[in-house]
């Protein structure tokens, strides 16, 4: 009985670790912030979910122990990883981090130019002065 739990846990954990490595290779190789966020959010989340589900199934099958805390951790990671990636990308775009040279289209730029949402450097300093 404990042998099948070990097999399921080991396979899922190995798959999760390999997905994490693929996402790290994507973080090193891709050209700019916006493309790198694909690697950093999607495949990394899938890797950690595989590892956590493998841990859950291992303890469930071999011990008969069902951990609510682990379910909560899976839920929380699944909820917060896309939000964090979106927040970072929005901050980068408002701070005018340049796109890669291979980029062909920037549809958000027109909207941001019309509404003047771009953060200008002296405005940031102004906010800093008022905070003091």
């Amino acid at each position, binding site marked *: 009985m404990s042998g099948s739990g070990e097999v399921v*846990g080991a396979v899922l954990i*190995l798959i999760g*670790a390999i997905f994490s490595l693929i996402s790290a290779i994507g973080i090193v190789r891709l050209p700019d912030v916006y493309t790198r*966020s694909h690697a950093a959010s999607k495949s990394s989340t899938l*890797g950690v979910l595989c590892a956590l589900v493998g841990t859950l199934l291992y303890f469930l099958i071999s011990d008969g122990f069902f951990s609510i805390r682990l379910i909560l951790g899976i839920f929380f990671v699944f909820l917060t990883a896309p939000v964090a990636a979106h927040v970072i990308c929005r901050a980068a775009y408002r701070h005018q981090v340049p796109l890669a040279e291979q980029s062909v289209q920037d549809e958000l730029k027109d909207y941001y130019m019309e509404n003047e949402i771009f953060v200008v450097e002296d405005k940031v300093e102004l906010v800093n002065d008022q905070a003091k």
Partner: protein
Amino acid sequence: MIFETVLITALCILMLAILANLYRIVKGPSSADRVQALDSIGINLIASTAVFSVLLHTHAFFDLILLIGILSFIGTVAFARFIERGVVIERKR
């Protein structure tokens, strides 16, 4: 025996992933790159904590998984606000 070998291999792969993220933190041209790689390191740490708890066959680290997840998310949001507005907590004026 094979089970423990697979788990240690998974830990080594996760370590390689963290090293690749550290390369991006050192080299990253903008601060958003660095924050992104730090967030990814937090996620890898969660995975390696889960692997450790299987390897040591203990339930004690499950709280730690939740804690690392929450702290990593809060840190990422705070850094993003700092990049975007220059302050983390805005005071009422």
